[in-house]
């Protein structure tokens, strides 16, 4: 057994790539060992800006000898078969072994030295290394075939049990020399073996362990802050980044001019963090202090010199930030917003100003309809009109991640109502599953409107997410809408809302028409009536033939958009399932409720799903589901199409779907009523269990209906539970498939009625188990 050390030394590896590089090295090396049948007791990897290293403990010195046996022809087989076999295995007849009347070729493969395996594996690992970005360099790069690495590779250490494993990649030969710290150590460092690697480099001012450097930075930064009577604002991302930029990290605290604290703290923190990779500190009252912590890579001769240099750089950055802060306030948000007319939102969707106007209209509508309760429509409109204005400010141009926040600050400075400035600040929220969900009404209205608009507009032009591609973050927008609705218990008719945005504008442009073609117009747009902002505007009148032509163009487009509405609702259903899965809600139950169709109020839908989940986990629920499945199976097996069979045969469930004229509706309804009445008169006396089910359904049917109308889903479930006993008894005692065709039909109809009653709650056929 022996320990192995591999070090790949190169010019500075980007900090962000180091953690993944460690993983990749471990994986590639582990795979190479496994392929040779070797295994180490442990694999540990290390990364610094200038080296990527690995130590494998307790490697066998050689791979195991293996004996490979190949089965040949039977003894006495035709000579051609034997000759063919000998050719294949490369042996002579005398070398074959005979066992149970069959020839076997046995080849002994001796074990290989591990060093030899490694000498082959190392160049292969280097060549196959999956850097996110790699480059060529030096004289060798005269061809594009030359080695690629993240930055120029300058040395390889490969030591097995202290001995060099000789190998070479692109002219770089392995050895035992490396370099210490770039400035604290000069000349090569010789490594004796894997066991002394870490300490030898420590003596040369290199801390090889990434995690140790992280600890030094984390603790050291906190310590220098504490020494100044401050508290460090913890930032693990910065810890990692600085650990990836240093081999000998030394956190140092500096101060900046107090007057910069006029600038919002988020701006200062971001300036320090993004541009300079500095930590910031808070004073005892939790306010941002005029201090920063930078991480040097040296034990400086005079740390004050390094700190002062960093202070100057930060001061220049903060001056820029303060300049932006002051400059932006010279113009009101309303003035800034005008510049949005010059910014394209999407080539097919107009400018950001166009979007803002749509959002404002929608936010106002959400407020005035009471969908977002206690929300002043005028404030909702005002906040929406200004919510994107900060995009054209200097500050957000410099720090895009401050969008919203800066708008909020500027609105407050301008003296706009707090509801408005808060809404501007928070209207991007929630961003992702863990983010805070806004509750302030104006904020909720603007946030909802913004996201609904993004979704419907991109769906309108067919820019929908596919697979891993979601360039406009529509999944996140849908999730945010779900969070906003459920977090605030908002009753939003989603289908209508989306339709209002997608379809109403098509008809909004045409208003004054002549009397004579009014009826035609009405019937054409009747289907889209739900989607009119103001149903009165649907009372279209047609003036002349020109308009008829226009309407002819619009109606197919409206029809297409109506399909988009349904597509978008399906998308919401998917997002809801993903989101609810994390909350422990079964996706099949969501399916079961969605399958009923027509439900587009997500809050009500979730209430139903939650009640359903509680119910199906009870004994009554399980048994009712079993009874349901049995009933459904029988209906399916008997191909029961019901008394409405003729119509169902058309494949359309909605009998009105094929009829354009809404005036036919009462005629069809009357016809259906006749059929139902005929079916309910029985030609025989029902058996007791059958009668019990009939009675139970007569009570349960209306009870379920009214419970659902009252949105008391728990009660609806309890009513369903009352059907469990009658259906079980029915199946025990009654033969459905009676020889008497009348009885059979009546009983099938009864089962169908049972199924339909259950369906009022959910489509139980979608429920698993």
């Amino acid at each position, binding site marked *: 057994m022996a320990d192995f050390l591999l070090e790949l030394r190169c010019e500075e590896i980007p*900090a962000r790539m180091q953690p993944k590089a460690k993983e990749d090295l471990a994986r590639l090396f582990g795979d190479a060992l496994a392929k040779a049948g070797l295994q180490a007791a442990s694999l540990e990897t290390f990364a610094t800006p200038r080296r990527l290293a690995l130590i494998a403990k307790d490697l066998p010195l050689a791979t195991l000898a293996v004996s490979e046996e190949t089965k040949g022809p039977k003894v006495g087989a035709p000579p051609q078969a034997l000759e063919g076999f000998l050719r294949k295995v490369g042996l002579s007849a005398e070398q074959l072994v005979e066992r149970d009347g069959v020839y076997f070729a046995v080849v002994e493969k001796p074990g290989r030295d591990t060093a030899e395996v490694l000498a082959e594996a190392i160049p292969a690992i280097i060549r196959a290394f999956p850097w996110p970005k790699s480059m*060529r360099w*030096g004289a060798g790069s005269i061809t594009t075939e030359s080695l690629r690495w993240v*930055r*120029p590779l300058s040395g390889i250490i490969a030591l097995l049990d202290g001995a060099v494993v000789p190998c070479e990649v692109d002219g770089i030969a392995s050895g035992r020399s490396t370099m210490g710290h770039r400035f604290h150590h000069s000349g090569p460092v010789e490594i004796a073996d894997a066991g002394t690697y870490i300490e030898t480099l420590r003596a040369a001012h290199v801390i090889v362990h990434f995690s140790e450097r992280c600890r030094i930075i984390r603790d050291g930064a906190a310590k220098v802050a504490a020494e100044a009577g401050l508290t460090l604002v913890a930032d693990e991302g910065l810890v990692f980044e600085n650990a990836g*930029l240093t081999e000998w990290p030394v956190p140092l605290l500096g101060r900046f001019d107090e007057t910069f604290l006029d600038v919002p703290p988020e701006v200062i923190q971001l300036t320090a963090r993004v541009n300079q990779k500095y930590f910031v500190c808070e004073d005892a009252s939790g306010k941002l202090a005029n201090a920063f912590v930078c991480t040097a890579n*040296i034990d*400086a001769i005079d740390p004050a010199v390094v700190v*002062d240099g960093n202070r100057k750089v930060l001061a220049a950055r903060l001056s820029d930030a303060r300049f932006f802060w002051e400059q932006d306030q010279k113009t009101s948000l309303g003035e800034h917003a005008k510049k949005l007319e*010059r910014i394209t939102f999407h080539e097919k969707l107009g400018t950001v100003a166009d979007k803002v106007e749509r959002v404002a209209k929608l936010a106002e509508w959400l407020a005035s309809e009471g969908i977002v309760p206690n929300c002043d429509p005028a404030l909702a409109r005002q906040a929406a009109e200004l919510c994107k204005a900060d995009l054209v400010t200097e500050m957000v141009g410099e720090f895009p991640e401050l969008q919203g926040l800066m708008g909020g600050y500027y609105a407050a400075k301008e003296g706009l109502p707090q509801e408005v400035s808060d809404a501007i600040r928070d209207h991007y929220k929630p961003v992702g599953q863990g983010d805070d969900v806004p509750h302030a009404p104006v904020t909720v209205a603007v946030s909802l409107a913004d996201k609904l608009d993004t979704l419907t507009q991109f769906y309108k032009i067919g820019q929908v997410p596919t697979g891993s591609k979601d360039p406009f973050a529509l999944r996140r927008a849908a999730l945010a809408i779900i969070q906003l609705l459920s977090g605030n218990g908002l009753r939003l008719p989603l289908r209508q809302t989306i339709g209002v945005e997608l379809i109403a504008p098509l008809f909004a442009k045409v208003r004054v028409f002549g009397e004579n073609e009014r009826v035609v117009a009405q019937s054409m747009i009747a289907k889209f009536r739900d989607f009119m902002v103001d149903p009165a505007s649907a009372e279209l009148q047609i003036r002349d033939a020109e308009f008829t032509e226009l309407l002819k163009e619009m109606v197919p487009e409206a029809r297409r958009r109506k399909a988009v509405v349904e597509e978008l609702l399906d998308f919401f259903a998917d997002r809801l399932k993903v989101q609810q899965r994390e909350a422990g809600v079964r996706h099949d139950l969501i399916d079961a409720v969605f399958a009923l169709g027509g439900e587009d109020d997500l809050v009500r839908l979730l209430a139903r799903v939650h009640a359903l989940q509680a119910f199906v986990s009870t004994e009554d629920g399980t048994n009712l589901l079993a009874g349901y499945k049995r009933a459904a199976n029988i209906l399916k097996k008997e191909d029961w199409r019901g008394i409405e069979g003729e119509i169902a045969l058309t494949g359309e469930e909605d009998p009105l779907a094929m009829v354009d004229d809404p005036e036919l509706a009462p005629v069809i309804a009357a016809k259906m009523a006749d059929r139902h009445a005929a079916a309910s008169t029985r030609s025989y006396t029902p058996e007791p269990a059958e009668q019990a089910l009939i009675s139970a359904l007569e009570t349960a049917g209306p009870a379920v209906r009214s419970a659902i109308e009252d949105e008391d889903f728990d009660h609806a479930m309890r009513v369903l539970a009352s059907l469990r006993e009658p259906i079980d008894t029915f199946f025990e005692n009654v033969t459905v498939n009676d020889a008497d065709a009348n009885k059979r039909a009546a009983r099938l109809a009864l089962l169908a009625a049972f199924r339909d009653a259950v369906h009022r709650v959910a489509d139980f056929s979608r429920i698993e188990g």
Partner: protein
Amino acid sequence: MNAAPLFTPAQRDPARSFQDMILTLHDFWSQHGSCVILQPYDMRMGAGTFHTATTLRALGPEPWNAAFVQPCRRPTDGRYGENPNRLQHYYQYQVILKPSPPDIQELYLKSLGAIGIDPLAHDIRFVEDDWESPTLGAWGLGWEVWCDGMEVTQFTYFQQMGGFDCKPVAGELTYGLERLAMYIQGVDNVYDLAFNSSGVSYGEVFLENERQMSKWNFEVADTDALFDLFAKAEAECRNALAAGVPIAAYEQAVEASHVFNLLQARGVISVQERASYMGRVRDLARSSCEAYATKMTPEWEAKYPGWSLV
């Protein structure tokens, strides 16, 4: 017998003189890396990378080592001489080493030492910063070099230029001279820099220039004339390309690029037009690089058997 020299250069003082810092860098790169020390390209350009010694010489197999100062014009960065570190005209020091030598980082650090930056007194760091110039069809990997948190040099290994793979790869160093000098001299305002050791300040040399040029860039320049210049440069670039003189074409692309920057400073190019103008400049620059590489390829292939452009 040698006559006594009539002139002996004085000791350089890079820590207290802007011009001595430049002369020290010239001395250094002239000795190390066997560079030719060039003079600035005599055209207005936005960055040293536009110098043909960088762009065009990065193409092809021949070794090339050069160092030079390039004045850079950034019309939109002008601040009428009122900002302590923003200028519409400033200097870059550019070193190009092809192929990139194995000790390029050490050479660079030594050059910092030569102008007075002690790496144990100052925290020098190589921070990831990849470079890309869509205009030149070029990209490379490298770092921005930090000195106590300040970016003092852009360090790039060119991977592609003019859309072609660099074979071999050149290493490019771009020092921001004013920034470095401010740091070394310990001044907070660029105009306070000592230009030489005899009391002439950077402000005496350039402050009035910044005031007038900022005004011209932002307020005065005749925009019709600029649009006209742009169109003429574009046409002349095409003309030169058609005539098989791609270096001349490239100069016109550089001209068009600068005129575009002036138009930007005059605020007469809308957001929508901006992309289209940039596309036109990009097209000129790339076509010129391509034409240059194509024209030179037979010669390169003859000198370097086995080498190919693509």
